[in-house]
C-alpha cells in the first residue's frame, strides 16, 4: 500500500477511535426522521408564507417553541402524547382546511389496525377529532405520509415489500418510501418516481427534489385539489 493511502487510513482510524467525537454507538434513525420532519415543515412554510403561518404545538394544543420529537411511535391522544410536538400549517383559511405535520404517530388503517406513520401530513380537523375523542386518526385523512428508512448499506428488498403492505392499509396514493441509502431493486419494484425517493440527504439533489414535491402537495391542498400518484 502506498504511503498516502496508509496515512489516510491512519487518519480515519484516529478519528473513529476518538471516544466523544461522533458517538458512533448511536443508530441515528431518530435524526433521519427529524431531518425529514424539518424538511416537510420548512417546505410547507414556504407555501403559506405571506398568507398563513407555520407554528408548533404540544399534545394539548398549546403553542410552543421548544419542539419535542418522538424516538418511538406513539398515539396522538392521551397523557403520553402531551409533551410531543407537531407543526400546524395555518392556511388562514375560514374553511378550516389547516394541516398538521406529525412525527411517529399511529393512524387507523383500512382493516381497523393501527399503523405507524414516520412523517404524516394530515388535516387538522382529523387530528383534533382524534385528540378530542381518544381515537386513532383515520389514514383516509392523510395528505402525505413518508416512511423513513435510514440505512447504512443498500436498502434490502424486504423493506419495499413491507412498504407495499403499509400502502395497502393507508392511503396508498399519498404514501412514499424515503431513504438516505440507495435501493435499485426496491426502486424497480416500487417503480421509482411514483412511491420511492432514495438518496435523500442534506445538500443532495434529492433533498431539494423532495422539498419541491412536498411544496407541490401542500400547494395542491391550498388550491382545494389533491395531489396523488
Amino acid at each position, binding site marked *: 500500500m502506498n504511503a*498516502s*493511502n496508509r496515512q489516510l487510513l491512519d487518519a480515519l482510524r484516529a478519528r*473513529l477511535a476518538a471516544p466523544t467525537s461522533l458517538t458512533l454507538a448511536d443508530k441515528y434513525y431518530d435524526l433521519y426522521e*427529524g431531518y425529514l420532519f424539518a424538511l416537510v415543515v420548512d417546505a410547507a412554510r414556504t407555501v403559506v408564507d405571506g398568507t398563513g403561518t407555520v407554528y408548533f404545538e404540544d399534545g394539548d394544543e398549546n403553542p410552543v417553541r421548544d419542539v419535542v420529537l418522538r*424516538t418511538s411511535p406513539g398515539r396522538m391522544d392521551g397523557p403520553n402524547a402531551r409533551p410531543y410536538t407537531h407543526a400546524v400549517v395555518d392556511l388562514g383559511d375560514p374553511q378550516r382546511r389547516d394541516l398538521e405535520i406529525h412525527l411517529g404517530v399511529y393512524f387507523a388503517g383500512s382493516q381497523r389496525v393501527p399503523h405507524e406513520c414516520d412523517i404524516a401530513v394530515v388535516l387538522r380537523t382529523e387530528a383534533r377529532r382524534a385528540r378530542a375523542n381518544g381515537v386513532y386518526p383515520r389514514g383516509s385523512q392523510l395528505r402525505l405520509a413518508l416512511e423513513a428508512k435510514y440505512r447504512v448499506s443498500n436498502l434490502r428488498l424486504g423493506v419495499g415489500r413491507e412498504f407495499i403492505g403499509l400502502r395497502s392499509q393507508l392511503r396508498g396514493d399519498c404514501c412514499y418510501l424515503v431513504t438516505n441509502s440507495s435501493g435499485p431493486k426496491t426502486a424497480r419494484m416500487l417503480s421509482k418516481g411514483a412511491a420511492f425517493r432514495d438518496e435523500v440527504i*442534506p445538500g443532495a439533489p434529492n433533498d431539494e427534489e423532495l422539498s419541491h414535491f412536498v411544496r407541490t402537495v401542500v400547494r395542491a391542498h391550498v388550491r382545494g385539489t389533491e395531489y396523488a400518484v
Partner: protein
Amino acid sequence: MDEREISELDRELRRVLRDAGLDRIVDQVDATIVEGRSVTERRKIDKSGPSEELVAVDYTARERYQLLLDAIRRAVVEPAAFEASAEVRLIERVGAASFTFLDPEENAVRTIGQPTSMEHRLRARDARRTLDRDAAGDVSAVLSRLDPRSASDEITSE
C-alpha cells in the same frame, strides 16, 4: 487505482472498522454483497426465441469497496448533516428555539438549540448535544480521497 490496490484498501478499511467496534457496518455491507445485483438480459433459452431474463450479477471488487465507503459515509458523516439540516430548517427558518428527541420514558436523548422553558432546560441537562460536525467533515474528506470515483484518485495512486 488498480484492482490490487482496491482489494488491499478494502481489506485494510474493514480492519479499521472492526478495530473501532463498527463491525455492524462491515456486516451490513456483506449482506448487500451476498444479495448481489440483478440485470435484465435478452437471452435465447426457449425454442420460441429470445426472451427477457433476470440474471444475477456479482459485485466487482471495485463495487464492493465503493459499497464499503458509502456505508461509512452514511454511518459516520451523514448523521451530523441530518442534525445540521434540521437545525437550519426548524430553528433558523421556522422559528423553533430548540428540538429534543424524547424517548417513551420521557428521557431526553438529544437536544439541539437552546430550550426556552425551564421544563425543557432541565430535560436537556443530561441529553446529548450536537454531534461533532468538524469530525464528520474530517472523515468525509478522508473518504473522498480514498474513493476511486472522486477526482482525488490521482493523489492516492502511485
